[in-house]
């Protein structure tokens, strides 16, 4: 496949007063919605959607949208509504990363909505499924102890709804439906490409490999992503197949400006301590745990991110812990660990060539708008990515394929 380049923005509500975040010490789940200002949110929506549109105009292959609940981290409380709007605003692919399956009591509704999106967009949909963060479970009252079971059962049900002619009946452990017979089916046959997004939980990586679906690494550091690819390939080897690059997606915080120095400054908006988007004021824990999402309530209320049964013991001790040590809990550490890729176009190109050489992702998604980063800077970053960075990366073959030497990471 030819590598594809996507734009991502959480489209977070960044208009809350900083002193309110200080007062509560968190900006999710219990952060009172009396702080929400609809007028400001309306303006933010217009700005964010314009940024997506601009990325499309600048040559990105697609846009990525997401879903969170009770969280300033993201205003997208329905990924399918985000995607519906994007079908009308951008030209390329729309990747949903995705529908948090366990929070739904009727997964067939998700199957129906994805089919609608695929039809309306003319087959431009990638359907990502996620477990949702701990906060999603708490805010939608989905039992976290059954999170993985619900995820896997909902996935099987949706896949069956797309691939096996209805009507049929579904009597599972968590889902029970008399009649499964969604009238509309996806345009892409048998169904749109399916991604599973994760933050390095080894069970999810192995599960995705077993299902032979694309695993999307959500904002994790380079070393951890490389080991995640290893796990995926190991499972595939055991099952007797070799995954191509289309089986790995990589979402990375990216700050590109005209110079390295400017990019470094703007990159600070990607770090919890500066933007405080959804992460609690006092901590950079979100990024150091490998994602802005799952760490969304790190700090005073880590239990919201990990309610009972949500995170396995293996995941707790595994990659995330390693990664946390690597990034040292500072902005500079996050840059060093590749959690945030920052630089002028030349530096950025070199960094991404290194990343491609190490991980060979079929889908590279730039998390290029974040927090309170000014709109103008975001637009300039999108322009530089589209006009200068992406064209250089498009033809770059991974050292994993060519056997050539890995492009060195820039020194400074």
């Amino acid at each position, binding site marked *: 496949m030819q590598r594809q380049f996507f734009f991502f923005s959480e489209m977070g509500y960044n208009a809350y007063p900083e002193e309110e975040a200080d007062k509560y010490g968190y900006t999710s789940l*219990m952060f009172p919605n009396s702080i929400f200002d609809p007028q400001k949110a309306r303006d933010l929506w217009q700005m964010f959607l314009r940024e997506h549109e601009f990325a499309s105009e600048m040559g990105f292959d697609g846009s990525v949208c997401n879903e969170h609940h009770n969280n300033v981290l993201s205003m997208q409380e329905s990924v399918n509504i985000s995607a519906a709007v994007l079908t009308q605003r951008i030209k390329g692919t729309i990747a949903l990363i995705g529908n948090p399956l366990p929070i739904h009591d009727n997964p067939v509704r998700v199957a129906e909505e994805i089919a609608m999106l695929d039809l309306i967009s003319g087959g431009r949909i990638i359907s990502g499924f996620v477990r949702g963060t701990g906060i999603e479970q708490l805010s939608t009252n989905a039992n976290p*102890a059954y999170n993985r079971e619900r995820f896997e059962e909902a996935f099987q049900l949706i896949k069956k709804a797309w691939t096996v002619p209805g009507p049929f009946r579904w009597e599972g452990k968590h889902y029970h439906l008399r009649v499964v017979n969604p009238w509309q089916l996806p345009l892409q046959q048998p169904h749109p490409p399916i991604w599973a997004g994760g933050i390095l939980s080894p069970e999810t990586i192995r599960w995705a490999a077993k299902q032979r679906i694309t695993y999307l690494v959500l904002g994790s550091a380079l070393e951890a992503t490389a080991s995640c690819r290893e796990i995926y390939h190991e499972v595939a080897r055991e099952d007797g197949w070799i995954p191509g690059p289309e089986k790995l997606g990589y979402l990375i915080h990216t700050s590109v400006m005209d110079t390295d120095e400017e990019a470094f400054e703007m990159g600070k908006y990607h770090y919890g301590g500066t933007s405080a988007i959804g992460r609690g004021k006092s901590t950079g824990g979100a990024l150091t745990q490998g994602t802005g999402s799952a760490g969304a309530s790190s700090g005073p209320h880590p239990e*919201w991110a990990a*309610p009972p049964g949500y995170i396995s013991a293996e995941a707790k001790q595994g990659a995330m812990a390693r990664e946390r040590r690597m990034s040292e809990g500072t902005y500079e550490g996050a840059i060093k660990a590749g959690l945030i890729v920052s630089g002028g176009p030349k530096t950025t190109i070199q960094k991404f060539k290194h990343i491609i050489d190490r991980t060979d992702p079929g889908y590279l998604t730039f998390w290029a708008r974040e927090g309170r980063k000014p709109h103008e800077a975001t637009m300039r970053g999108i322009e530089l990515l589209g006009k200068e960075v992406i064209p250089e990366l498009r033809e770059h073959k991974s050292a994993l394929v060519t056997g050539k030497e890995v492009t060195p990471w820039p020194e400074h």
Partner: protein
Amino acid sequence: MAGTLNAPSETVARLAGIDTLVRRGGSGTPLLVIHGELGVPGWLESYSLLGQSHDVIVPSLPGYGASQRPDWIMSIHDLAAWITWFARDSGIDTPVNVIGCSMGAWAAVEIATVAPHFFGKLVLTGPMGIKPSKGEIFDYFLENGMTGLRRNFHQPESSAEFQRFYGKELSVEETDIIEQHREMTCRMVWKPYMHSLTLHGLLPAIRTPTLIVQGSEDKITPLDCGAYYANAIPGARHVTIAGSGHAVEMEKPQEFAGLVREFLNG
């Protein structure tokens, strides 16, 4: 000390379909303890005191402590059924006297509604299972494990039992067990949280002599819940222990054991 007079045995045996940890000590007529959502950290002072007159039997419920977690236990009703099976497999003659604590009290009441012959007398502490009309049952799942544990006590710092089990730096294994208990609880009582939608309709059918004991400073189960049970179960009494939090059996062992003994002997 009472604890050394009737040192308990601690065994893991295949009972009621799972490997079950059972602590048992004392002598006299059997007294079965159904623990609550926090599990049992060890042989409590109150068990020792009650062991002077009773054969105190404390299983770790499925998914708690060293007892296995079967996938099929998904509700308090399932748990209640397992408890009756456990009693049968353990050779406990029924009717048997039972203490049910907090979530365990709810399980005991579920049994009482369908198997009245199971019980001699029933003691409930800080009983879950009923939606309070005043206040709310504390939501353990919005807070961390230690916060929930502390909240079970009115004054954790001056509770000997709290200090003995939790007033120290916990090992990774001890922290893991607290999380394991939270997960098992979550499996059974997530929604509707810690209460039944139907139990209230069945309470008037109970004929078991019932004593409800609650700490006057209970910050987990509103006192309203205990009062509701006492009103709904014919002949039941609601007694509060002054200066105690939710875990009366741990925070006020003397007073609690005294009340239980008096009730069982009366």
